[in-house]
């Protein structure tokens, strides 16, 4: 009997405490700087081109093989605007398969890829799983707009 009253008192006490709920769609709570949502490519502001040189290191290191990298000669290098001889041509990441393990970021020697740490990196529900395969533009859009500053680069 006493124990029962005790537990009922406990629940009653909780009624007067503050609910822990964060009202999600309205309130987006503070997301840690190191948050690892999904890998995105970083945009090199001064040369106005991606850092990525398409060196395939991340592609090789990805445990689930969800990346595809195509490399090409850098036109800007010919004109001398940039020191990068090679540059990324095509880049696909299948977010539907990525396990967010951060390895691609660690192996990249050019700090060209980083983990998205914004809410945009999480709210990615799609009606068709093909739409989860992100191409180069989608991968770079965010950092082009200067919206992402990955807490975790290599």
């Amino acid at each position: 009997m006493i124990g029962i009253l005790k537990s009922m008192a406990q629940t009653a006490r909780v009624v007067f405490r503050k609910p822990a709920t964060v009202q999600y769609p309205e309130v987006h709570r503070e997301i840690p700087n190191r948050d690892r949502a999904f890998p995105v490519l970083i945009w090199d502001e001064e040369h106005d081109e991606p850092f990525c040189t398409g060196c395939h290191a991340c592609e090789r290191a990805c445990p689930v093989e969800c990346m595809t990298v195509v490399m090409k000669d850098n036109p800007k290098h010919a004109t001398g605007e940039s020191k990068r001889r090679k540059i990324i041509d095509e880049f696909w990441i299948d977010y539907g398969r990525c396990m967010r393990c951060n390895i691609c970021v660690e192996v990249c020697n050019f700090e060209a890829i980083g983990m998205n740490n914004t809410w945009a990196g999480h709210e990615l529900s799609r009606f068709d799983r093909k739409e989860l395969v992100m191409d180069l533009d989608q991968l770079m859009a965010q950092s082009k707009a200067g919206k992402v500053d990955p807490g975790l680069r290599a």
Partner: protein
Amino acid sequence: MVLEQGHAVEIVDMPINMGPQHPSTHGVFRMVLAVNGEQVVNVTPHIGYMHRGGEKLMEAMDFRQGIGYADRTEYLAQFHAELGYVMAVERLMDLKVPDRAEYIRVILSELNRLSSHFMFMGAFGIDAGLFGTSFTFAFVQRENLLDLFEEVSGDRLMYAYFRVGGLAWEVTDNFVQRVHEVLKQAQQGIRDLDDLMTKNEIFMGRCQNVGAFSAKQAISYGMSGPLLRASGVPWDLRKDEPYSVYDRFNFEVPVGNYGDVYDRYLVRLEEMKQSIKIIEQALEQLPPEGPIVPEKMPRRLRTPPGEVYSKVESPRGEWGVYLVSKGGDKPYRLKMRSPSFCNLSALREMTIGQYLADAVMILGSMDIVLCCVDR
């Protein structure tokens, strides 16, 4: 079974199928209970619904990639899983992990024990028929812990933070103070759950003398962790075979007298308090700064040939990793000794003769992780 007229009816036991989808078989465990009236006369566990070849895949991965799969195998005690895995590799490469890294590992592992036991408390309350309240109480605290983990490692569940030789990267600057905050809330949460369940007569009536298991039986089934300790065997790897830096802390190992469901609950409750004690000591001894990876850390992880078995005390018991290497950067053979599996093997003997409702309680008291059973 068709009834024949004219001779005595053999009274059949009603086979009841629990799982793979059932609110109270944790994950996709399936058991077929033969029930007579309300009494369970036979149990046939069916596992393998979650067998996804984690070990085999890890043999195809190098040592860094494997860590992620270790996480996903023991998804309630990820830090322990990682620790077991990286310790195995470190033993092979005989790397000396710097002190600071060791302390942070201990702190995070113990916090992880808290979060895992909170999960148990919640689920156990549900099994006892408590309408979600224990679950919510537990998860309020669990969320705090997960937030801390996320700040440190960058993910809520799959941390991949312990690396061979040390840690992936430095902890955050306000780590120590954040841990203190979280611990304060966690103590509050433990008190809440204590008030809610421990002394409640109905809860006692449901738990006491249910699924009692003697020390002898427990050992013979190779059980470990809270279940073994609840049966009265004071066996705890942190105490008997201290790995990491566990030999530098004072704490107590709770040991039960009856080995029934209630004792398992109490042991876990007490372990949470002990974990908090350990964490506080570790925070005191934690070197303010220092390396988190050895100085001469090789660029590529290549192990010499050999084999090693490393084990840690996970919230469910002895989590062991047996690793054979023939050189190179991949394990040649990898076997995980999953505590959930060994504990689960005792289910049949515990359950037979109990009530139908108690079968659920007993399964709940084992606190299994299905991916860890099937791997």
